[in-house]
């Protein structure tokens, strides 16, 4: 009887740990995504403004806009490493 409870508690603890890791991974992607979004919104609107005036700037504007994308990539990589 005592042994049963101990096993049950161990299972519980392991499940809790797995849950916490999942939450951590979620936070890593989610918060990094927010960071990317915040940075990209300003660059993106400026880029759209620039290339409506001068169409040749489309390429450069696009590149500038995706620069902060790296932040979320880092978050994603961290999340995957946590889950594995």
């Amino acid at each position, binding site marked *: 009887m005592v042994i049963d409870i101990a096993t049950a508690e161990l299972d519980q603890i392991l499940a809790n740990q797995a849950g916490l890791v999942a939450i951590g991974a979620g936070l890593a992607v989610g918060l990094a995504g927010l960071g990317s979004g915040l940075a990209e919104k300003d660059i993106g609107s400026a880029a759209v403004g620039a290339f409506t005036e001068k169409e040749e700037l489309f*390429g*450069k504007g696009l590149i500038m806009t995706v620069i902060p994308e790296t932040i979320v990539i*880092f978050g*994603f*990589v961290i999340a995957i490493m946590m889950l594995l």
Partner: protein
Amino acid sequence: MLKPKQMSKVLLTGHKDVLEPTIETLHDLYTLHIEEYVGDDYFHIGTPLSGADEGSKKLLKLRSIASFLGIKKPYHKPISARQLSSELEGKLETLGDVISGKLGRKSQIEADLKDVQTEIHEIEAFSGIPVNLDLCRGYNTLHVFAGTVMKGADVRAGLTGITDEYQFITGNTGVFILTVPVKYREQVAELLAEYGFGEVKIPAISGTPDDLINELTSRQDSLAKDLESLSSEIDSVKAEYEDFILASEELLSIETQKKETPLVIATSEHTFVIDGWIPDDEFETMRSRVEEATDNRVYATIVEEPVDEANVPIEYDNPKIVKPMEAVMNLYARPKYHEIDPTTFVFIAFPLFYGMILGDIGYGLILLGISLYGRSKLHGDGWNSLFTVLIYCNIVTLIFGILYAEFLGFPLAGLHGHPGLIPGWETITLFAGLGGEHITYPIHRTHLVTTLLVLTLLIGVIHINIGLIAGFRNVLVKHGMKAAVLEKIAWIILQVGIFLLLFGVMGVVPSMLPGAAIFVLAVIMLVAGEGGTAIIEIPSVLSNILSYSRLLAVGLSSIGIATAVNIMSGMMFESGGLFIVVAVIIFILGHGLNTALSIIAPGLHALRLQYVEFFTKFYEGGGRIYNPFGYKRIYTEE
């Protein structure tokens, strides 16, 4: 291949008598980039050749006809320019006559139609009133009110308090005509004002409203019919003359371009001087052709004086297979004259990165099909380059797809007892990877994250250092050895220092001292080369290299979406019955979405690695576009 075409500055000079054949020859050659002459003391800007006026008038006429007929630019079989130019005059004349008659008639009919519609609109308000509208005006002793009042207002009841000498007629639309003796006019007007009277003007026309409406409607119909038949006549003219218009527009544009060339070259009283740029290997051909056409009366020479790099027009010099990548370069900037032209690097790295990220046989086949179809259907340089680049990318995707054995997110080979799509194909373990992982064939990306992550970073190190070496060459040519070493080699040394330090921390090498020493040396070199700001940029080396982890990460997210779609539709499918339809819908929509994302995400990320991580190491760009004098014929041929 790695450099833009070598250009020479050339001067052509001769007597004005031979200007026309010279222009003719240069136009045919389509190789000389003419520098526009801006004028100084001795020479002045030339005047157009004779016939330029006439040509531009014809061109104007033709373009207005084309816009009237609504001719767009389809892809066409070219027709002979010589034959066209002989019949151009006559045909244009006939076309002009035909069109101007139709144009006049069309605008007349349209005006009439508009008038009729306005009249109908005015009279319609009175429909149902059985009174000739002529009888509603021109009285001395009577006053006629016509209009509407608020809903529910009883005009007759109100009138009983004033007079019973009136006539009140309402029609279908609620508009009424009220006739009263002039002496009650003020009182009735006050009464009507209380009821919210809105006056409607009685049209100055004779006849009862209903008859008039019938008459006008039938007239409207006949006008509409006329317009329709005229439109079909115009369409038949359009169909008959479309080829002619497109071809002669091109022919006349070429003529006008030639005739107006003197406007950009220098002339004196009797001579002309053409100043321009030509690719080195084209100069001899140009000289001999021009001399031949003018009996040696034009002197062509290469100007040997040193030229400013910024003025040289840039033409790519790439093998045919690499050419489509120039579109990717143009999106960023054309190389400068003395710079390395990185098109070939991009040609290798861009499809490679794209394929590494996507690496799925299913998506690769779908996108390959789309791009092959698109390339056969859509013409024009832009589309052609775009689809060709996509084809390159998706061929590499297929290769990586076979390496990863993925099909629309499903693994093709079985692993750890989970069967793959192809029964009997089991994953073979080859050797140990990093972090306790095993490298297998096929490679399961989701099970090999640590190893692949290190591999992508290694690719990053290689790619960035190729960029730095290219940068070394660029700075060497421009500023000499010392600057090149301090600005570019120092970054490579810095990386060596960082890696030695890392190995020191991990215990791979016994001491951190050599790493630290090399790191400090590199920092000193950088500060000497680029100034104090270089210190701020040091972390960028790391973030640039880490950025290549997207080669794995973006691919994993694509697998994630595909797997989610597969699981969802699989669960629906197992429920059976009507759910099978839902499963199919989810499958198609989900993978459709992921296919669209498969162009955008790997494309943008592979592109960004070129532009941001790679180009910043060596590439400036901003060269002038080489725009040779001539015309690219589409609708005509010589």
